[in-house]
C-alpha cells in the first residue's frame, strides 16, 4: 500500500518532464548526433557525395589535437575567460553584498541594479563597433585623450598589440556580463528566507559575518549555477572576438569557438574537423565542470542531504495523509 502511493507521486516527475523531453528530442538530439557522426568522417566540402569514411576514424581528432592554432586558441580562451571572469564574479559578489545587506542601505540601489545589467541589452555587433572606434588608431577618443594629456607622445596602435587586444576583449566580456551575474546572485539572495537574517540580527552578527555566514552558504546552489554557466559560456566565447578584431592580431583573440568556425567557414568547409574540435571542446567543458562541482562538493552535498531529509520527511507525511484520506 505504502509503496504504491510513493509511485503515484513519482509519475508526476515523469509527466512534468515530458514537454522538455519532446522539445529536446525534436530540436536538439538529431542535429547533435548528426554532428558527432561526421566528426568521424572525411566530411569536407559542400558536396556530401564527396565525403568519405576515414581509414582511422580518429584521424580528425588527431589532426585537431596536433593543430598549433587549436592549441593556441584553447590557451587564448582560458586566458581571456580568467581575465574577465575573476573580476566579474568578485564585482558581482561585492555589489550583491552591498545591494542586499540590511544594514547600510545605499540610496538609489534599485536604480543601480537596473542600470548595471544594461550593457547586456545591446547586441554584440554594436558593442564591437563602439569599442573599435573607441580604440581607433591613429585617431580615436582614447588616443586623443592620452595624447592631449601627455601620457604618450604619439598615438598607440592598440589593435596591433596582442596583450592589449586580449585585455580589451576580456574587458568587454567583463563589462557585458557582470550585471547579468549580479542579477542572478541577487535573485538567489532574495530567495533566502528573511527569518534567517532576522535571527542573525538578534544574534548580533555584523555585515561581514552575515554575508559570509548566511548569504554565501545560502546562495551556494545559485553560485554553482553561475560558475558552471560562466564556464560554459566563457569556453564558447565567440561573438566579441569575432566581431571586434576577427581573432587578430596574430591570432591572439582567436578563441576555440572561432577556431571551430574557421575550420568550417574560412573557405575549406572542413566539417569533419570542425565537428571533432567541437567534441574535444565538449570533453574539456565537461571535465572543467566536473572539477567545479567537485570543488564545490562538500557544502553542496550538505544542502543536498538536508533536502533529501526534508523530502523524506515530506514523503512520510504525504504517505500518512494519503493513507488517511485514500486516493484522491
Amino acid at each position: 500500500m505504502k509503496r504504491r502511493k510513493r509511485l503515484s507521486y513519482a509519475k508526476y516527475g515523469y509527466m512534468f518532464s515530458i514537454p522538455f523531453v519532446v522539445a529536446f528530442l525534436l530540436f536538439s538530439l538529431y542535429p547533435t548526433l548528426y554532428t558527432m557522426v561526421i566528426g568521424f568522417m572525411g566530411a569536407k566540402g559542400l558536396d556530401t557525395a564527396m565525403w568519405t569514411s576515414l581509414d582511422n576514424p580518429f584521424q580528425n581528432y588527431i589532426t585537431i589535437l596536433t593543430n598549433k592554432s587549436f592549441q593556441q586558441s584553447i590557451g587564448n580562451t582560458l586566458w581571456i575567460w580568467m581575465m574577465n571572469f575573476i573580476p566579474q564574479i568578485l564585482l558581482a559578489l561585492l555589489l550583491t553584498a552591498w545591494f542586499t545587506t540590511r544594514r547600510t542601505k545605499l540610496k538609489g540601489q534599485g536604480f543601480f541594479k537596473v542600470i548595471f545589467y544594461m550593457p547586456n541589452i545591446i547586441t554584440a555587433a554594436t558593442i564591437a563597433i563602439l569599442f573599435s572606434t573607441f580604440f581607433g588608431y591613429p585617431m580615436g577618443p582614447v588616443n586623443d585623450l592620452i595624447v592631449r594629456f601627455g601620457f604618450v607622445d604619439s598615438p598607440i596602435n592598440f589593435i596591433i598589440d596582442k596583450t592589449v587586444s586580449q585585455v580589451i576583449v576580456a574587458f568587454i566580456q567583463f563589462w557585458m556580463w557582470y550585471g547579468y551575474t549580479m542579477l542572478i546572485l541577487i535573485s538567489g539572495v532574495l530567495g533566502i528566507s528573511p527569518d534567517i537574517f532576522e535571527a542573525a540580527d538578534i544574534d548580533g552578527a555584523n555585515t561581514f559575518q552575515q554575508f559570509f555566514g548566511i548569504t554565501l552558504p545560502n546562495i551556494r546552489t545559485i553560485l554553482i549555477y553561475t560558475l558552471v554557466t560562466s564556464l560554459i559560456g566563457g569556453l564558447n566565447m565567440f561573438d566579441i572576438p569575432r566581431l571586434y578584431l576577427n581573432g587578430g592580431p596574430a591570432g591572439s583573440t582567436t578563441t576555440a569557438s572561432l577556431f571551430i568556425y574557421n575550420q568550417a567557414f574560412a573557405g575549406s568547409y572542413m566539417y569533419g574537423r570542425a565537428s571533432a574540435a567541437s567534441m574535444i571542446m565538449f570533453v574539456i567543458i565537461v571535465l572543467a565542470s566536473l572539477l567545479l562541482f567537485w570543488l564545490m562538493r562538500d557544502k553542496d552535498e550538505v544542502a543536498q542531504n538536508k533536502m533529501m531529509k526534508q523530502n523524506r520527511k515530506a514523503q512520510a507525511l504525504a504517505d500518512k495523509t494519503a493513507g488517511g484520506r485514500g486516493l484522491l
Partner: protein
Amino acid sequence: MTKVSSRNGSIAFKIFAYTLCILLTILSIFPFLIMFINATRSTYEIQQSAVTLIPGTDLLNNFDVYTGKTFNPFQGFVNSMIISIGATALNIYFSTLTAYALVAYNWRARGAFFSIIMGVMMIPAQVTSIGFYQFMYQIGMVNNFLALILPAMAAPATVFFMRQYMVANLPMDLLEAARIDGSREFSTFNRIVLPIMKPAMATQAIFSFVGNWNALFLPLILLTNNSNYTMPIMVSLLKGDIYKTEYGAVYLGLSLTVLPLFVVYFLLSKYIIAGVALGGVKG
C-alpha cells in the same frame, strides 16, 4: 572600536561605494547615449567621428532612410514581439515545470535526467545546432515563427537555474500542506510554486526576452519573407549594403530596436528592485 571611527568607516565606505556605482553607471549608459546621439547624426558625421556627446540634426533624414526601405518597421516590431514573447513564455513556464519535476518528486530516472540536462548544456552550441536549420528546411518550417518559438521549451540552462533556485528556496512542507488541502499536483504547481518562483522567473524572463529579441542569425536565414522580418533583420539589411552603409539609419534602427527592450526590462525589473518577498514562506 569607538563610535567615531566606525562612523568614519561608514562614510569612507559610502564614498567608495557611490564612486564605484556612479562609475559603473556611466559605463553602462555610455553606449546607449552614443547610440541615441548617433541616431540623430548623418552618416558622414558618424564616419568622421563615431563617439561624441553632441547630437546632430539628421534624425528625420535617418528616419526617412530607415522607413524608405522595402520593409515595414512596425511589422518588424510586431514580429519580434510575437517571437520573443512566445519563446520567453514557453522557456520560463516549461523550464520551471521541468525543474519542479526534478526537485519535488523522487523518481527513478531523476538523477540520470538531471545529468542529461547538464550534459546538453555543455555541448558547445556549434554542435547542438548543426542540423537544426536543415531540419527546419526539410519539414517546411522556413518562414514559420514556430521554428523560433517551440525550441524554447527545452532550455537546459534555464532548467538548471530554476532547479538550483528551487532546491534552496522551495519549502517542501508547503507542498505537503497543499496536498493535505486536496490540491492536485498540477494545480499546486500553478497556484503555489509559480508565485514563489517569481523573482527567479522574472530574472530568467529578462534574459530570455533579451536573447530572443536580439537574435539575428537564425531569424536571418529562417525568415526570408520580408513580411516576416524581425527588427534586428531590418537593421542588418541596412548594414548589409556592400558599398555604402547608412550609419545614421543603422543607429536609428538599433535605437528603435532597443526601446521595446527597455520597456520590457523596466517592467520586469520591479522584481529585481523591490525584492519581492517570498510570501508563501513566512509564517
